[in-house]
């Protein structure tokens, strides 16, 4: 389209009746005509460039999002899918039935505790690792970075498999090592019999897998902290914690907040780890919000109920992300 545009306008530019006087002058000077064409072209060019991205995002992300909202006000079941019949409208019924279900609130509470624990330990340990990376020798840092990159790139189901093996009740290393401690017998201990201990193992897996991203992001943020600032604070009498709190942390705060928000979002979506650890058939006590919505859709076969749960989840999540959202709205003002 842009090519057609430029070809069509080029011969006309000079002879257009309404063209302002400089236009005639413009066509007379060789280089100028190109400039005119370029501005015209560049006005539509950015829109042309973003069109494919907009189309695919609207189709694969935007439409389903709208559809989730629509679905949550209907009663779509698997039967409708096969028969291609349109589901009946039920208003807020799905929401009232979800919100009055005590099981749902158990799941919400469990999810909150799980996410809070995971995010807290991920951020604290990630920050400590980042600070440590700043203080070690280069060769140690290289070793730490490579192991963390390896862990980061590890497919989720692969790392879940490793943990499943390490915490196996028969051949798991953890049980056998604990049993070697004097006075402790963990032979054949099944960590997953009790959902609290099972979810703790899953949380350890999540934290282990998330530390690398946090530590590396925070480390690269820490390298941005000007040395002079810390030195000045030291001369003024600040010490360890004080320097960190009043000098270092304010500089890395934007990255810290962003990575915390991302961790919250990711940990809300924990699902595959539980599926794999529980042999694809997680007990009810293992359900977190993501898994709960998944089970409602694909085991209970109520797509609409699942959609309603998803919408509630997104609303809950956005409460946590308000700071991040505000940060987002500032984008573009700075540049």
């Amino acid at each position, binding site marked *: 389209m842009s090519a057609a545009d430029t070809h069509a306008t080029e011969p006309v530019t000079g002879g257009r009746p309404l063209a302002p006087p400089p236009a005639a002058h413009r066509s007379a000077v060789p280089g100028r005509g190109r400039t005119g064409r370029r501005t015209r072209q560049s006005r539509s060019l950015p829109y042309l460039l973003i069109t494919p991205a907009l189309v695919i995002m609207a189709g*694969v992300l935007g439409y389903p999002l709208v559809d989730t909202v629509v679905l949550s006000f209907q009663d779509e079941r698997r039967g409708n899918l096969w028969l291609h019949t349109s589901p009946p409208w039920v208003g807020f019924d799905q929401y009232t039935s979800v919100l009055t279900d005590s099981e749902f609130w158990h799941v919400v509470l469990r999810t909150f505790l799980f996410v809070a624990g995971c995010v807290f330990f991920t951020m604290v340990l990630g920050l400590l690792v980042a600070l440590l990376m700043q203080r070690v020798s280069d060769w140690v840092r290289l070793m730490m970075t490579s192991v963390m990159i390896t862990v980061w790139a590890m497919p*989720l189901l692969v790392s879940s498999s490793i943990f499943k093996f390490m915490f196996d009740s028969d051949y798991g290393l953890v049980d056998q090592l604990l049993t070697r401690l004097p006075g402790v017998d963990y032979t054949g201990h099944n960590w997953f019999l009790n959902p609290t201990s099972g979810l703790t193992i899953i949380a350890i897996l999540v934290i282990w897998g998330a530390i690398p991203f946090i530590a590396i992001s925070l480390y*690269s943020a820490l390298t941005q902290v000007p040395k002079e600032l810390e030195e000045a604070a030291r001369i003024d009498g600040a010490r360890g914690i004080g320097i960190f709190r009043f000098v270092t942390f304010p500089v890395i705060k934007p990255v810290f907040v962003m990575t915390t928000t991302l961790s919250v979002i990711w940990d809300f979506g924990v699902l595959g780890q539980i599926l794999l650890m529980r042999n694809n058939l997680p007990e009810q006590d293992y359900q977190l919000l993501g898994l709960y919505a998944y089970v409602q859709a694909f085991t209970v076969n109520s797509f609409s109920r699942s959609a309603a749960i998803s919408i509630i989840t997104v609303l809950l999540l956005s409460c946590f992300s308000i700071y991040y959202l505000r940060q987002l709205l500032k984008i573009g003002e700075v540049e």
Partner: protein
Amino acid sequence: MSTAAKVTYRSKKKSRAGWNVLGLITFVIMGFPVYWMIITALRPSQEILSYHQKLYPSSVTFDQFKRAIDMPNFWDNVKSSVIISLFSVVIAIGIGLLAAYAIGRFRFWGRRGLMIALLLVQMIPATSMLVPIYIQLNDLGGLNEYWGVIAVYAASTLPFSVWMLRGFIINIPRELEESAMVDGCSQMAAFRRVVLPLLAPGLVAAAIYALMTAWNEYLFAYVLLQDNDKYTLSIWLLKFTGQRGTDYGALMAGSILIALPVVFFFLLVQRKVAAGLTAGAVKG
């Protein structure tokens, strides 16, 4: 004076040694599960199914790898994974590059809205998109087809690819393009001849990050694909767990086979990815 300098130097060295020890402990803790995976995959089966696990193997064998590869559908699933990841990355990076260039180089109405939208969609949990996408693909006949999964992966890696590429593009001085345009290049030619070569490393980093995301994804692949020979490698791992227990040796060997390519590529480009991931936070 010189002794004082020596003392501070020595104490600095001493304190660094303490940090180094802590760093090595972190290294061991973080790396241990990976080590355990590798060791298990290399040892004979009777050592894996043992009540007295040793921290190192007594002998090394490749039996576990052989059994993993002999599992049904391994090569089919390798093919699926490669097709799905490659196509989705090419689409995401190709389309993402155009959009990133528009955002990074032009001022146009709706630019800021687009940037916010790109970050906003990353906040939506993937699980909430599962049901509508499943229904939509069912209507379009895209269930159990590669293109359905490819479209989903391309779209879900797109926002991040755009964001990351934008970060690389704004670091290329605009003057370079302008001087090319003064020399007679059109805007697109300047892009192709000046920006693209400079962008190549960033492009590779973004592509590998997208590749990693697509290669490691399991949920959509599990729900949208239905045939054993169409599943991706992540789903293939679920086969090692049966009613009669888990074949851990083969599972660990299979895990290595799946993790190896992504870990390798990712080690190459990690520096750029980390910078790209948080570019939004620093700039905003």
